[in-house]
């Protein structure tokens, strides 16, 4: 398979759609097996995700988190490193957002947002810095260290929310509500808020950084060929540390969406696994910022549509929806090459 790569519309549209189709067909078989009519079930999912303004709002709200989480994986992946710590980095980002917001009662949201966002970026980046340094300086495998740091972040959040910043008299592990003036502008009837625009801006900036700057060029060079990067006097170690921290900073922004945009407080476990969905999103979006936006919307739709499905068909429990998510990841990520050969053969023949 030498020669020119496939044209972009095949690579980024036709093949992913075929993968998605395959995942939906297998999902349909599973739904049929548990007695849910697949056609109407899938229609109900689509209806739930895209059929109403509120549905779309929920889809985009989930997508906001998934864009941030996808970027958290994709930026380090460009350096050839697998950051699986988006979950923990988001938790720390969220904690700092909450502390900033609790400290600024009465501020208008637009004045507090830069500070809160800076706190989120800093928290996520700082939580990624230690695994990054351990990887680059000591060769400690980043997959292991970031997983461990997820546990650390989880325990630390629990302690903070139970023992330190819990609202007095509140039995659940969460902070007091923020001042209403701090709430980000949001759609009525769904939780999608200004953070969506921040996520899109982050994706655009990530694309610009990776594909249009010298820094991104050196990052990609170091990720694809350490020997060639060494030859070209590219400081691969420093680049990797910065890329991991930028990824962590993106993950931290999930805290802005959840705390400042939706809950107006910090709730324990607010990340709800979004950090891990980011791995699938980055995989499916092929680490490309625009691909990540599309993949994040797809997963947002699966989350929102899945909730709708469970509502309409009680036998399609939450677990069945997880299975369907898994099938999408399987076909779009792990079996990504499934349709590539036949499509490439067809294309080359025509």
């Amino acid at each position, binding site marked *: 398979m*030498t*020669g*020119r*790569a496939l044209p972009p519309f095949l690579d980024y549209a036709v093949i992913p759609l075929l993968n998605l189709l395959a995942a939906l067909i297998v999902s349909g078989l599973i739904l049929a097996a548990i007695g849910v009519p697949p056609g109407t079930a899938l229609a109900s999912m689509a209806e739930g995700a895209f059929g109403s303004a509120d549905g779309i709002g929920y889809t985009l709200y989930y997508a906001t988190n998934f864009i941030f989480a996808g970027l958290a994986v994709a930026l380090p992946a460009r350096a050839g490193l697998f950051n699986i710590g988006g979950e923990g980095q988001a938790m720390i980002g969220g904690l700092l957002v909450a502390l900033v917001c609790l400290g600024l009662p009465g501020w208008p949201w637009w004045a507090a947002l830069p500070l809160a966002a800076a706190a989120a970026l800093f928290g996520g980046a700082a939580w990624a810095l230690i695994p990054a340094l351990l990887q680059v300086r000591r060769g400690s495998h980043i997959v292991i260290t970031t997983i461990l740091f997820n546990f650390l972040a989880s325990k630390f959040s629990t302690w903070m929310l139970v023992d330190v910043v819990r609202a007095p008299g509140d039995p659940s592990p969460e902070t007091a509500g923020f001042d209403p003036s701090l709430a980000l502008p949001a759609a009525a009837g769904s939780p999608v808020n200004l953070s969506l625009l921040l996520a899109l801006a982050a994706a655009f900036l990530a694309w610009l950084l990776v594909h*249009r*700057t*010298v*820094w991104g*060029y*050196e990052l*990609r*060079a170091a990720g*694809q*060929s350490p*020997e*060639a990067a*060494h*030859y*070209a*006097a590219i*400081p691969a170690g420093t680049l990797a540390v910065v890329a991991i921290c930028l990824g962590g900073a993106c993950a931290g922004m999930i805290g802005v969406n959840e705390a400042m945009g939706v809950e107006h407080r910090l709730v324990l476990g607010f990340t709800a696994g979004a950090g891990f969905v980011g791995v699938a999103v980055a995989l499916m979006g092929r680490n490309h910022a625009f691909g990540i936006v599309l993949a994040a919307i797809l997963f947002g739709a699966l989350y929102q549509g899945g909730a709708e499905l469970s509502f309409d068909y009680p036998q399609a429990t939450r677990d069945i929806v997880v299975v369907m998510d898994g099938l999408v990841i399987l076909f779009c990520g792990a079996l990504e090459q499934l349709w590539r050969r036949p499509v490439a053969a067809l294309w080359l023949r025509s």
Partner: protein
Amino acid sequence: MSFAARAGSIHGVVGENGAGKSTLMSILYGYYQPDRGTILLEDEPVRIGDSAQAIKLGIGMVHQHFVLVEDFTVLQNIMLGLEGGFRLAPALAAARRRLAALEAAYGLAVDLDAVVGTLPVGLRQRVEILKALYRGARILILDEPTAVLTPAETEQLFAILRRLQAEGKTIFLITHKLREIMEVTDRVTVLRRGSVAADLATSATSEAELAEFMIGRKPAARAAATPARPGPVRLAATGLVVVDRSGIRRLDGVDLTLRAGEITGIAGVAGNGQSELLAALAGLVPAEGSLRRDGREVPHSGRARALRRSGLAHIPEDRQRMGLIAGFAAWESAILGHQREPRYARRGFLRIGCAVAETLARMAEYEIRPRDPRLRSAAFSGGNQQKLIAARETAPAPEVLLAGQPTRGVDIGAIELIHARLRALRDGGTAILLVSSELDEILALSDRILVMAGGRITGSFEREGASERGIGLMMAGLAAGSA
């Protein structure tokens, strides 16, 4: 195109990069399917759908880049895929017996229990040949087999090929090197732009005639060497020592000065410290000793970057791993190492338009095919990749150029072009270090020749006093001193 090879002959296939040699051989080995036309094997039309079928038909291929598992022993590598049962031990014993017979029959001595990763290149190649024979090959295709061999190893390879021929095997030898064609083949097919330009008995032709068929015109006469006018010292190393990970002194106290307007050639059998010398001078490996650029000591930390900034260019020996990045577009590989220069970058942003346009211009100048700057680097043949790298490192003129095997694996036309470029750079005042395993190349270009053996410089020659014989003896460690 059509041509035929007689059983029991050594058939040479020559042609420039992109002339279709590799495509042709890939068709014979089943990697590609021909759109039209037939392959006749012993007068029977055959269809070679994939390499498994090719092996079944008795066709074996020895690739330019070996496909061996480095951590496995020779024996394990050869029988890989042919283990045949669940238990390994009996299969290994059987394989060992058969291989001993093969080795004896063809004079292919290799230690079957040696770990492949520890073997020199020449022996790895023998392993590849044994592998093909073990699979019952009657027809052997060798793709650029001598590109990585020392002169002595090349001689040994040819001896093996003659032996194989005497035993009735048919051999296809793909090469750029006309001298080898003349030396070892019975018949030669010259390809040019995808068709057969000539197909003749080797005894009825000459190197000059073949070269003419290959490039479609008479090769340019070698420019008469003008005397060098050495200028100031651009790069000076004293007491360079490089110790590798296992504690071996790969470079053992090398003193070297590179002057503006002079080409210094390093001759030596591969593996005697030349690669380490290049790496040390480029600041890519930690080295003891002093390194001065225009008289100023270059600090150890950030040395590679400081040297690059000072106008040092480097054609790396290992183009696959170092010279370019397989997944990068050609234009991206064409700025590697220079990506921060103002012509490619402004305020931190890449000037993609400039880089693409420049790459396209170089592709025209160096006849790099296919002429598409947005194509992935891996999609270019080795020779075209080398041209891309040589173009990158030689324009605009650097102050210092470290050239490691600058013409390895490229065709006559490109060698002419690269040599002309190196001479022009030298005349324009670039200080050039030339490391090459081709003694011809060293002799053709160098104003001063240093011989390396065992990590030291063991002799030096001025251009006039240099002879292939004298240098060859010193390379082999049979003579010492200077002339």
